[in-house]
């Protein structure tokens, strides 16, 4: 069995830098079994052998209140790694040593990686490494500041030296009355547990004194109860004797121990040094500037996910759905399968499905980069600090704001953006509400309907839809806060404001890649599957004689039959036609598909496929490559344009925006589709005026119903099936009620 080393430490101490320095490229990211917390493992070459390094989640402590803490504790207690490397921030040594003290109590070989010593030095803090090691029972203490080579090499040597496995010969000393009771409880614990189950009776006894009964989960009910009763009696006795509860006493005394250690080993300046970080905060969290700066940062993140990603998204879309689509046709034609169902499966099923997954890659790349920059720099905590008061009003907290903003671009990255929240309840609620923000894919629907039914006033419809999404999110948050979550105390907001740091490019890119890969693997498979199934439904005739497989009018396919069956449900909302319900079904793939389906179904004649026999494959490949270069150029253009676009937010200013290429003037003849839409909605609603109300109801439904399968499968990946179905049910129900209300009330008011 290879050696296993666990990396533990507080959040924001540079643990991942050390992990990367130790393992290089040989690492793997997954999830902890049954948890949504990321698990990182890697192999490090140490001496002559490969050592498995497990990066534990960043935690402040080892109690059982957060998933991260339980994972960390269970891993150390149950998996018994050969040693733990505790990474600590030298500039903030006292609070970091609290976790170390708890690891010492687990009686496991321990190495201290003293990180960020340069930051400590800049604040005038000097640490005597030898003394620190002495005070902590002789454990190795290695300076690893900034992931520098010498530090990492020294750490490797120390890990190699721990192969024989010594744990620090040290007990955290407690006051006489606690020591006395600890002895009693450890005795009782040891009696009930065989040594291989409870190798550390003193640690178990400490946990019992701290009223942390989760450590007894492995015991039989009778033994458990006996120990819990004993612990309760002991806690009462201590409380009667000292007038303090044991939890406070133990935390106090751990910090007293830390105080003794640092008094010997740490020299602090008598005056607090005002750091650059402090000066930045004077502006960034300023009473007046704090909010504008926050809004500016959010705006820039939104620009990146919505506009800067757009050219690459368009390129991926065109490459998959035109170039590759065409090539697949040529290929199948060349082998004599042109126009057959295998061709359609490959093109409309496989290529369209893969394309539907890949279009998200540019968006997610920019989002994950932005998130990593915000987190690593330390700004995320400030954003939460500034916005907490406002977000709490709707049952959320400060960090919930960013996912909401990202939701205006795309719901998928918005759901991922909730990863920065630590409380599972607030995370789910944030993701849930973020789906009501009008994402970029809903906009084309508003535009088409606005143009068809409101002509020059189409902007009113678009604006109303955006506002309605925000109102529904607010209302849902408020209602949940006062019903489902009523009486539940808000999750603690005790939050560290870490010093600002320059993000490391390597860490940022690595995180971005890992998260994007996670999406491709997990959400991607679901999206792909749903696309294929939908293709199958559209290709299969509902009855013999209605057409051949893959050559059937939409209305005569299984898809058409399903749409027909659903249609009456929407009659009270004024759009109970199979065309409308069919486009809503396809809208589940992605909401912008609604527009495509509408033009396909409503357009009187089928569009001929553009035949271009004189273009060769190499020419197309050349065009695609050129298109990619152009898209990259446009990406840079859009990134630069953030500056004038931001300046233009100030009324009266109009800074010019860069434009590398002349705007392609795509003038599609939409009038036929518009006329068909008008006719169909007027007919189903009863009159042209009612048709207009029905069109608004339809848009309300599009805004509120199940975001799209990409968002839904992301919800499943992040929160599990139960929450996914809860969301699907709620959004469908709410959308229907809202659409019916709009149509019925609209008819009463306007007709």
């Amino acid at each position: 069995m290879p050696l296993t080393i666990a990396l533990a430490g507080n959040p924001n101490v540079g643990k991942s830098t050390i992990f990367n320095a130790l393992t290089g490229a040989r690492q793997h990211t997954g999830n902890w079994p049954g948890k949504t917390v990321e698990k990182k493992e890697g192999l490090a070459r140490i001496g002559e052998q490969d050592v498995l390094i497990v990066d534990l989640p960043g935690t402040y402590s080892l109690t059982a209140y957060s998933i991260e803490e339980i994972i960390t504790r269970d891993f150390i207690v149950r998996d018994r790694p050969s040693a733990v490397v505790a990474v600590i921030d030298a500039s903030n040594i006292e609070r970091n040593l609290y976790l170390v003290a708890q690891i010492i109590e687990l009686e496991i070989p321990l190495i201290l990686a003293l990180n960020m010593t340069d930051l400590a030095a800049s604040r005038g803090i000097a640490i005597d490494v030898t003394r620190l090691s002495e005070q902590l029972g002789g454990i190795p203490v290695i300076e690893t500041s900034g992931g520098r080579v010498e530090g990492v090499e020294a750490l490797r040597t120390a890990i190699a030296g721990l192969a024989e496995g010594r744990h620090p010969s040290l007990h955290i000393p407690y006051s006489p009355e606690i020591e006395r009771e600890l002895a009693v409880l450890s005795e009782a614990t040891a009696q009930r547990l065989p040594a291989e189950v409870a190798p550390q009776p003193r640690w178990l006894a400490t946990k019992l004194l701290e009223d942390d009964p989760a450590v007894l989960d492995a015991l039989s009910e009778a033994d458990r109860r006996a120990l819990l009763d004993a612990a309760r009696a002991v806690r009462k006795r201590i409380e009667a004797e000292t007038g303090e509860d044991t939890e406070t006493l133990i935390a106090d005394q751990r910090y007293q121990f830390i105080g003794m250690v640092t008094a010997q080993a740490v020299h602090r300046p008598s005056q607090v040094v005002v750091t650059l970080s402090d000066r930045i905060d004077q502006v960034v969290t300023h009473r007046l500037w704090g909010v504008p700066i926050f809004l500016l940062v959010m705006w820039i993140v939104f620009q990146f996910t919505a506009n800067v990603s757009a050219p690459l998204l368009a390129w991926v879309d065109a490459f998959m759905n035109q170039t590759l689509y065409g090539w697949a046709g040529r290929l199948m034609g060349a082998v004599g399968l042109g126009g057959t169902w295998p061709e359609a499966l490959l093109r409309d099923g496989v290529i369209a499905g893969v394309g539907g997954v890949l279009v998200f890659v540019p968006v997610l790349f920019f989002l994950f980069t932005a998130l990593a920059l915000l987190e690593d720099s330390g700004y995320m905590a400030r954003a939460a600090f500034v916005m907490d008061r406002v977000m709490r009003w709707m049952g959320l907290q400060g960090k919930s704001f960013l996912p909401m903003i990202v939701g205006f671009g795309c719901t998928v990255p918005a759901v991922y953006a909730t990863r920065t929240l630590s409380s599972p309840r607030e995370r789910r609620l944030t993701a849930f509400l973020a789906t009501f923000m009008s994402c970029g894919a809903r906009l084309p629907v508003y535009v088409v309907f606005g143009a068809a039914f409101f002509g020059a006033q189409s902007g009113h419809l678009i604006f109303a839809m955006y506002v309605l999404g925000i109102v529904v999110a607010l209302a849902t948050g408020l209602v949940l806060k006062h019903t489902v979550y009523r009486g539940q105390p808000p999750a603690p907001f005790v939050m560290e404001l870490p010093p600002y740091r320059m993000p490391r490019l390597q860490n940022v890119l690595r995180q971005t890649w890992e998260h994007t890969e996670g999406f491709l693997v997990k959400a991607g498979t679901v999206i792909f599957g749903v696309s294929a199934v939908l293709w199958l439904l559209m290709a299969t005739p509902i009855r013999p004689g209605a057409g051949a497989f893959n050559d059937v009018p939409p209305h005569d396919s299984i898809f058409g039959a399903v749409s027909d069956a659903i249609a009456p449900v929407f009659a009270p909302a004024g759009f109970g036609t199979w065309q409308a319900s069919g486009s809503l079904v396809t809208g589940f793939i992605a909401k912008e598909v609604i527009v495509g389906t509408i033009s396909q179904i409503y357009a009187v004649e089928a569009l001929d496929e553009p035949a271009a026999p004189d273009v060769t494959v190499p020419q197309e490949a050349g065009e695609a490559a050129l298109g990619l270069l152009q898209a990259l150029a446009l990406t840079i253009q859009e990134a630069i344009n953030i500056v004038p676009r931001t300046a233009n937010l100030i009324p009266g200013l109009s800074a010019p925006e860069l434009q590398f290429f002349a705007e392609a003037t795509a003038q599609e003849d939409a009038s036929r589709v518009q006329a068909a839409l008008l006719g169909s909605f007027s007919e189903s609603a009863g009159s042209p005026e009612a048709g207009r109300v029905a069109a608004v109801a339809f848009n309300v439904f599009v805004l509120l119903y199940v975001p799209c399968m990409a968002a839904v499968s992301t919800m499943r990946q992040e929160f599990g099936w139960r929450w996914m179905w809860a969301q699907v049910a709620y959004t469908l129900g709410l959308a229907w009620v809202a659409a019916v209300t709009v149509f019925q009330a609209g008819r009463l008011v306007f007709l």
Partner: protein
Amino acid sequence: MNITLGAQQQTLTSKTLDQLAAGQMATIRRVSGEGPLRRRMLEMGITRGTTIEMIRRSPFGDPIEYRLRGYHLSLRRSEARLIEIEL
């Protein structure tokens, strides 16, 4: 009855952390409250005898930023109210 009254009076007269003005320092006397919140505050080093300085309020007045043990911590006002201090 008298004991309860006495205890109430004591909590009424003692100062809590949310009453500090920016730049003001205090010493922590006791952390009341219960459950995960109190434990988290203890773990973060809010223990008896610790010196704590109020840095600033958030632009909307809540939460509040403090400095203790050489690092910066943000607490909601409702959380700071659970911490008894002496000046």
